[in-house]
């Protein structure tokens, strides 16, 4: 390639009667390639011009875009069913006519938009083939642009143009200034994304006027009223079966283990922090107690041990008492 500054472009303005075909032919005879020449006009010229471009290009693209559009329509109208399993009580959520309608619209959308974008790209690419714009064509003139001419050829081209009846010939340096019209499609795209950023910020109905659990009390319940779902009390007779059940172990683990330890020896993880040591449930002193007495201790508390009256229901305390009663006696020599 020859360096830019050695090459120029020429732009000639012609009256509309000028015979452009002849000039073009003469230019080509003078060694100018076809793609160096462009003809500018204020309206599309009906005459066939020799500038080569495939006539079929947009139809294929439009059809392809339409097919992609159908795919997009299918994806969206059947997407919920595919991406997110929804419970709809056995009702189908994809229906053929619906998919058809949506796909029709997305097909059209894609076809139109892609054709449009293709056209923009083509218009902008064609811009580079012309030396410069010639504003005066809009007053009913034609312009012939010959770009990328070597200095040696400039005089020849000028001569041909003058002979063809050029009103004005301009010479333009080949390194062209950047033209206006930066597409800002991605700005638009990003703005659309911003709209999505609003999603989920509204907090309708998140805080209800009705009294919710764990809310500070608003009114005290009337004196003498009973909670609707007070915990049930089971009779002593049924306890035997429950005695060693998993339930008792679970209750012991949650409520007693922290102080009394897993084996009941009073060596739970909390024990070292307490002023006194918790009782050893396997010690003879405890073993001597009846389940009723243990129940009373759980209910009322004893010494350091807090009362579990409000924390455990009567049957839970009963289960626990039976569980403690059934523990095996302490077998090691030291005693508390």
């Amino acid at each position, binding site marked *: 390639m020859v360096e830019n500054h050695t090459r120029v472009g020429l732009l000639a303005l012609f009256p509309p009667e000028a015979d452009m075909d002849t000039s073009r032919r003469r230019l080509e005879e003078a060694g100018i390639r076809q793609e160096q020449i462009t003809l500018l006009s204020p309206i599309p010229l009906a005459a066939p011009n020799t500038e080569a471009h495939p006539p079929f290009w947009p139809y294929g693209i439009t059809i392809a875009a339409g097919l992609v559009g159908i795919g997009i329509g299918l994806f969206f109208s059947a997407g919920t069913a595919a991406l997110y399993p929804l*419970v709809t009580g056995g009702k189908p959520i994809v229906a053929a006519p619906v998919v058809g309608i949506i796909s029709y619209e997305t097909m059209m959308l894609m076809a139109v938009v892609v054709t449009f974008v293709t056209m923009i790209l083509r218009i902008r690419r064609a811009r580079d083939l012309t030396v410069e714009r010639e504003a005066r064509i809009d007053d009913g003139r034609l312009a012939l642009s010959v770009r990328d001419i070597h200095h040696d050829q400039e005089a020849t081209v000028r001569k041909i143009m003058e002979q063809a009846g050029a009103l004005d010939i301009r010479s333009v340096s080949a390194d062209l200034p950047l033209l206006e019209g930066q597409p800002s499609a991605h700005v638009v795209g*990003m703005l659309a994304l911003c709209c999505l950023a609003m*999603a*989920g*910020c509204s907090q309708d109905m998140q805080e209800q006027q*009705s009294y919710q*659990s764990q809310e500070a009390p608003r009114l005290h319940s009337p004196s003498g009223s009973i909670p609707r779902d007070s915990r049930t009390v089971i009779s002593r007779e049924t306890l035997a079966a429950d005695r060693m059940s998993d339930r008792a172990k679970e209750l012991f683990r949650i409520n007693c283990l*922290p102080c009394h330890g897993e084996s009941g020896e009073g060596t739970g993880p909390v024990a070292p922090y*307490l002023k006194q040591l918790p009782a050893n449930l396997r010690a003879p002193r405890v073993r001597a107690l009846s389940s009723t007495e243990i129940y009373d201790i759980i209910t009322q508390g004893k010494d350091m041990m807090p009362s579990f009256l409000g924390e455990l229901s009567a049957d839970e305390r009963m289960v626990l008492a039976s569980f403690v009663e059934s523990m095996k006696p302490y077998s090691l020599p030291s005693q508390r």
Partner: protein
Amino acid sequence: MGASLGSRYIRITGLCGHTYLLFHGRRHMNRSGWKSFGILLLAGTAALAVGLLYSKGSADSAAQDRQPIPFSHKFHAGQLKLDCLFCHRSAHQSPTAGVPSLKLCLGCHQNMDAEKAGIQTLLAHWNEQRPVSWVRLQRLPDFVYFTHERHLAHGLQCATCHGQVEHMSGTPRAATLEMGWCLSCHQQRGASQDCLTCHK
């Protein structure tokens, strides 16, 4: 959910604590790309401002774990190995897990050497018979029906949703507590995905 989708999406957590999933796809940014990024930033801020106008801002959703008394789950649940249900006693029998009563705290704390400032405050509350106003950190919107009892009855562990609090000094939200998060678990475990299971 983050793990299952992580490869395909970027996760962006908005100001209101909501999570957005975006397709992950970075392109080379040119100069005008940065310009539009600037516009994006501006417009995004504007959009968020509008959004925030409508969000009345539930204090608990984005609140820091700044309790009136410096309570440590790490110590109580970790070192002392207290079961979650010892304090949050109603979790296995009611929709709400519950916050322990002052009386339950005192059950242990009145038998301890009250040296720390926090424990002093706690005792002061007890002496004045004034409840501690703990800051609520884990909360679902009121239009959601959620019950701890059913979830525990079906064998879920507290840590599944609340994280391993025995290793945390504070108790931040371990999960987003958002619909998609709930749904993904319901899907995995074959639980009901009917809207009315959770919406009331």
